[in-house]
């Protein structure tokens, strides 16, 4: 059986005595420094923001499919409102859903539990991180209610549109938008410092570098990638804010500024950012497919080095977003080559996962369905990226619905499918009860099928030349042909269906909190350390801190009765 050695309290424990024996609700849930509480705070905030982001998408999709309609729950969508809706949908989904849920929520919840620590290295910095994040979300929400409305210059904030309220007509909205994004970055900076330091310094005795579960590695690498790329964007954001509010001219071509400069600063961050969200999802999937195929992860070290390599390479591809912005054609060739190169490591990771599944005894439980869907759907996203990476085809496809469909085939598997995979897998640990399998499967199919019927039509529309930032296609007769308009309707109706199916998830989530079957310590028979403590884990995580004797993926080891071998079990 699991045996642990008692340890002296580590410095991170020093915060224990801050808490009285029976803390009240506020101290326990709002001001806690416990990594698990902070993780859940991030998760619930992220889920709330996802609902909001989904609602915004519903409103502008209704306008696209049925121009001029009085959208139920919203009203008629004006061109300016349309721009604000699109802008904030994108920003919310990336910065207030994908990042907080995939990195902050699961990073906080899982890292200490999976490496055998009692808490983060800097618990109070961690609490501050969440509080700042909450403020950033509130600032963004506030921007909807100020004079002129919310910012509508796209999540990429290109100047001159974003640099002068004369053009964007949202004097306060723009300022609040930039401030919200900046605050959010500070919050994640604090989180990232915590994740890296904790993983390096607080591992259980015996846990060597290659015994760290893949999801922890991936969150750590994602944090490093984020911190290494965000600096130039913060610099750019300050310059943009000054242009907008104080009258400087960093990006104003009429006064000696350079609007393309912003695009470089933004995309130098923007492209690594897509790997920042990708890596945690890749890690989550690694945990799930090994458990539900009862097999060792194929080529652990290869996956790890590949992720490192992808991270480095991701700093060299940013100008593929600027092929038609007037960059030198010789530069365009270089960036085409690097972009095509980066699809190699990504493809390799997918092959490694398929090799892991090969010959396994696969159980199609809900978490596994999500993980498999991630692999299948992300593949489509990655492959369509190649058409965009080749500058020749991108000159035609740029800023059409093809690009939009491409990045939704990457972001949706990452942020939505990845999060549902993680939530359905770790829910028993978080709340001590199982989610309902039948409801889980209904929700799965009700999400994945409509997802495809939303975005496959958009690939077709994009290839037909539909530009992605148009409020009403009736004003462009060549694009307003009947077949194309019908595809738009298919996409919108699918979106409404998909959103409706989320009610099944919410019901399952809250119903199972009280009515779900009791989970016990280790319902999935998994190896990693979080499954060796109670569900939900107590404050401090273990009564006796664990010691690690082997890697995280020892499933179906020949010569053993059990088909799993927990990391903390002495031979």
């Amino acid at each position, binding site marked *: 059986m699991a045996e642990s050695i008692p340890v002296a309290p580590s410095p991170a424990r020093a915060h224990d005595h801050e808490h009285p024996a029976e803390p009240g609700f506020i101290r326990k849930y709002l001001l806690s420094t416990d990594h698990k509480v902070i993780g859940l705070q991030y998760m619930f905030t992220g889920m709330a923001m996802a609902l909001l982001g989904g609602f915004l998408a519903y409103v502008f999709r209704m306008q696209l499919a049925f121009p001029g309609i009085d959208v139920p729950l919203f009203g008629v969508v004006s061109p300016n409102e349309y721009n604000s809706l699109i802008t904030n949908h994108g920003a919310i989904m990336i910065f207030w859903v994908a990042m907080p849920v995939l990195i902050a929520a699961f990073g906080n919840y899982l890292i200490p539990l999976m490496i055998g620590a009692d808490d983060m290295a*800097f618990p109070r910095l961690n609490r501050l991180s969440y509080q700042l994040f909450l403020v950033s979300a509130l600032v963004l929400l506030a921007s909807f209610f100020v004079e002129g409305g919310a910012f509508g210059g796209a999540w990429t904030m290109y100047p001159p549109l974003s640099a002068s309220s004369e053009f964007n007509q949202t004097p306060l909205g723009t300022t609040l938008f930039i401030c919200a994004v900046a605050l959010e970055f500070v919050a994640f*900076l604090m989180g990232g410092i915590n994740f890296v330091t904790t993983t390096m310094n607080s591992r259980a005795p015996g846990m060597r570098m290659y015994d760290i579960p893949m999801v922890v590695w991936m969150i750590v690498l994602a944090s490093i990638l984020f911190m290494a790329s965000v*600096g*130039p964007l913060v*610099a750019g954001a300050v310059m943009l804010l000054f242009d907008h509010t104080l009258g400087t001219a960093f990006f104003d071509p009429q006064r000696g500024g350079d609007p393309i400069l912003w695009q470089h600063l933004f995309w130098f961050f923007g492209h690594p950012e897509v790997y920042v969200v990708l890596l945690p999802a890749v890690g989550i999937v690694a945990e799930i497919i090994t458990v539900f195929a009862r097999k060792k992860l194929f080529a652990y070290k290869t996956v790890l080095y590949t992720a490192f390599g992808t991270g480095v390479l991701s700093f060299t591809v940013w100008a593929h977003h600027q092929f038609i912005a007037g960059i030198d054609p010789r530069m365009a060739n270089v960036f085409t080559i690097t972009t095509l190169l980066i699809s190699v490591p990504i493809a390799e990771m997918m092959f490694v996962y398929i090799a892991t599944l090969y010959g396994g005894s696969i159980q199609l439980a809900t978490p596994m369905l999500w993980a498999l869907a991630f692999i299948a759907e992300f593949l489509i996203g990655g492959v369509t990226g190649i058409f965009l990476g080749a500058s020749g085809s991108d000159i035609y496809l740029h800023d059409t619905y093809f690009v939009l469909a491409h990045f939704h085939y990457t972001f949706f598997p990452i942020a939505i499918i990845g999060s549902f995979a993680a939530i359905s897998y770790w829910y028993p640990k978080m709340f001590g009860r199982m989610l309902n399998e039948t409801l889980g499967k209904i929700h799965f199919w009700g999400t994945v099928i409509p997802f495809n019927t939303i975005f496959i039509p958009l690939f077709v529309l994009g290839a037909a030349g539909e530009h992605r930032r148009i409020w009403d296609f009736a004003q462009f007769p060549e694009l307003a042909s009947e077949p194309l308009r019908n595809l738009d309707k298919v996409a919108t109706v699918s979106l409404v269906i998909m959103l409706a199916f989320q009610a099944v998830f919410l019901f399952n989530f809250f119903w199972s909190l009280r009515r779900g079957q009791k989970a016990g310590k280790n319902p999935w028979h998994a190896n990693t350390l979080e499954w060796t403590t109670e569900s939900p884990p107590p404050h401090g995580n273990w009564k006796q801190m664990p*010691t690690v004797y082997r890697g995280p993926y020892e499933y179906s080891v020949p010569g053993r009765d059990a088909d799993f071998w927990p990391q903390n079990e002495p*031979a």
Partner: protein
Amino acid sequence: MNPPAYGSVRVVAEQRREPLIPNGVMGMLIFVVTEAMLFAGLISAFTITRSSAVVWPPPGQPRLPFEATALNTAALLASAAALIWARRCFDRNRRTARLPLAIAVLLGAFFVVSQGAEWLAMLRQGLTLTSSQLGSFFYVIVGFHALHAVVALAALVYTWVRLQRGWLASSQLGTAQVFWYFVAGIWPILWLVVYR
């Protein structure tokens, strides 16, 4: 307490051990990497704008006082050297670190104050945030650095107070050191790129 030493068992010799790099120092190192990238972004933006300008400095704008600020630069570097010296003393006998740490603080304060005076002089000569690209970049880049210098100086003073009262831990000194070395180390680069 050692696990049994048979079979393929890994011998877990270490108990929960002291980390190689203390938490605070490590956190600060990571933070400094992010900060370095921030300045790299600013510097490259500046270099691009400058190299595509037709005349530089822009017409009607003063030249930045490259020579006059050399003294400040020297003071800041000397302050970093004093901090290295303070660390040496601290490791041998804590109390002897008081003098070098105080010197580091004073030299750092000299840098911040005379840099502020330089700013006032530039403002009087007509270089403002909105007067030209040079002014905008100057105040943003050097302003960012000044902000860091002030915060880092406050951290150094705090370190000195703790040392005075005998509460200073080695890792706390280490954390302040990393931040101050960053502030001092990035300055000569900014100085060479922006002032010249």
